[in-house]
């Protein structure tokens, strides 16, 4: 049973999870206490940034109060303390608003503090010196982001509202980056050095996912319909699709190299089309194979979830098969179909990272280049971009699913 399949079969609880209201009597927020304790310990014992004389050597960790001017350190510390204090007051809407506000401020402040530290390092040690984000920064930032998400989840349970707030936060961070305030950070330098390549690889990543979707959606849907119409084929079909998902992606990519290079060797016309052992062709084929299971299972589960009585009534009233599919089956199956689409898009976005290993390009290029050059900030650039892309797709399709669900409820 694959991850993808699980999610398709049970979209509802997963979709509802971020929106779940917290039950129980009003009291302190133990999770936030835990988060703030973690922040305090991290700030006290780990480096907030790490400074290195150049790109390749590994840096020396600098604690927050060493890395930045006292006023900046005090601001970050004050926000952490304020977040901890707000965890102890009794629960209510205004507490969640306060937490959201402080957490958002802490997120921005810690990023600005790190950039400020990078500016100080650059001023002291020259332009080749590198300042990377340290463990304490990541713990504070992740904690603040999670506190923000948790508070927003309770304040605005609707995924559309959550999407709007997420977009606002991301927009603020992007504006900060665009303003040049962060440009002394090593991560920003890695990006600046590869601005053109970054855009190209991002587009490449999207193109690979899009190409695989273009093939997996129609084929997978047909397979799902086949499973629906021919009960005897159901078990072997899903067993085979499940087996494909079981095989590690890199193995499928690798196994396709031989046959495809043989093909392009035998038919030079294929090579002219760009089809060969390495590159986009094996990547899209492998990604398509992976996408088949969630798509087929989604189409099958969705259409099988339509009550037989409704189909019988529709047929008895004189709807033809196409009208039944268009007017009845697909609208009723839509929530499950969209959930399946979300699963397959997120999964393919992740798998495409690996495609860089067979020369197909995409965001994985930065990860594997970074791993090869021991350039940690290049690794971060690729990994964080891939994670962000998957999250954007997830949130967007979750919102779409919610829109459809509310459209159906009066």
């Amino acid at each position, binding site marked *: 049973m694959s991850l993808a399949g699980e999610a398709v079969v049970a979209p509802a609880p997963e979709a509802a999870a971020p929106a779940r209201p917290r039950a129980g009597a009003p009291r302190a927020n133990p999770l936030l206490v835990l988060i703030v304790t973690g922040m305090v310990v991290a700030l006290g014992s780990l480096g907030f940034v790490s400074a290195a004389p150049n790109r390749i050597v590994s840096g020396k960790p600098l604690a927050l109060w060493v890395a930045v001017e006292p006023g900046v350190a005090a601001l970050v510390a004050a926000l952490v303390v304020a977040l901890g204090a707000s965890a102890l007051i009794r629960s209510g809407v205004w507490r969640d608003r306060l937490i959201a506000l402080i957490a958002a401020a802490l997120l921005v402040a810690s990023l600005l503090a790190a950039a400020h530290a990078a500016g100080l390092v650059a001023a002291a040690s020259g332009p080749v010196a590198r300042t990377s984000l340290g463990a304490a920064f990541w713990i504070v930032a992740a904690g603040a982001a999670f506190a923000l998400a948790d508070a927003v989840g309770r304040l605005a349970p609707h995924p559309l509202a959550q999407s709007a707030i997420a977009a606002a936060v991301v927009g603020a961070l992007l504006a900060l980056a665009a303003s040049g305030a962060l440009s002394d950070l090593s991560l920003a330098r890695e990006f600046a050095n590869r601005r053109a390549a970054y855009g190209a690889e991002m587009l490449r990543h999207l193109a690979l996912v899009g190409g695989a979707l273009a093939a997996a959606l129609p084929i997978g849907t047909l397979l799902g319909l086949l499973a629906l119409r021919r009960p005897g084929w159901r078990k072997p079909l899903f067993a085979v699709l499940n087996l494909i998902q079981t095989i590690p992606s890199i193995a499928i990519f690798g196994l396709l190299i031989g046959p495809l290079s043989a093909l392009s060797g035998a038919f030079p016309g294929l090579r002219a089309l760009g089809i060969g052992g390495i590159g986009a062709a094996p990547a899209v084929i492998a990604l398509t194979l992976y996408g088949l299971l969630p798509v087929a299972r989604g189409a099958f589960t969705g259409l099988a979830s339509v009550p037989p009585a409704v189909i019988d009534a529709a047929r008895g*009233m004189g709807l033809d098969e196409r009208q039944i599919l268009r007017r009845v089956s697909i609208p009723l199956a839509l929530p499950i179909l969209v959930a399946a689409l979300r699963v397959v898009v997120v999964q393919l976005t992740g798998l495409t990272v690996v495609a860089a290993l067979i020369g197909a390009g995409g965001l994985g290029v930065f990860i594997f280049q970074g791993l090869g050059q021991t350039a940690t900030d290049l690794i971060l650039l690729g990994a964080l971009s891939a994670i962000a892309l998957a999250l954007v797709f997830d949130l967007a399709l979750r919102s779409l699913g919610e829109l459809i669900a509310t459209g159906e409820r009066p």
Partner: protein
Amino acid sequence: MIVLDRLTKRYGPTVAVDQLSLTVPTGSICALVGASGCGKSTTLRLINRLIEPDGGRVLIEGTDAASLPAVALRRRIGYVIQSIGLFPHWSIARNISTVPELLGWTPARISARVDELLDLVGLDPALYRHRRPHQLSGGQQQRVGVARALAADPDLLLMDEPFGALDPVTRDGLQGALIDIQARTGKTVVIVTHDIDEAIRLASRIAVLDGGRLIQQGTPRELLAHPVNSFVEAFVGGPRRGLRLLQVTPVGERTDYSVDHGDACEPIAADAMLDAALALMVAGGTDRLPVRDQAGRRGTLSLADVVTS
């Protein structure tokens, strides 16, 4: 008039419907009854060609159903099923307007028709038009199911155990509503049921099926009075058959109009059924009841006349 002519349907080696011939006069309610698996539902679905026959014909007002496109045929025939099958993603109004929409009626005509039908099935249009199926009770949903089936004013209504999933009180109300609707619209109705009481109450003709064959057909009274074999006799009630016979025999048939019992109590109408008369006797502790027919003639019904014909 609906004529089933030697209709046959096989599933592999089993014969679901075996050379079944049956005539349903226009404007009557015909009940197909029998145990589960007797082929009654299959027969119904052969009429609107949800199932294609392996032999025989269905003639609707003289036209062979097989000569029409199946989809067009079904749009001319109302269809009501036990599990109702309302479209959960549509409002009540849109559910009812499905077939008129397919037939290309104007929106104004559809809208007027929806209100008319909701009135007919006893639901207030202002209240129910915009609701969703899940906001209605089972009985209300089936009222909508009947309205939806009647939407395009079909001459023929097919009902497959339409009230089988409802509680007895709701079922009783809907049976009454169906009798009323049929009386007002004059539709021809073929209804499948395993409930002989329902068949007796609703149908002017009952066809008893067993193993895909037609065993006996006739008016409820004919079946109760003269079952052709022990199967039909058991089906229509066995030892309780006599009680059901009272339900279909009018008081007037047993009344002695030579004796005027006077006005000791309120007289019973001559077209009431004997079961009602018997109930009055038991309740009043008497063995005689005054009777008055529609013409105003007076007479007397005695317990002995109820029991012996």
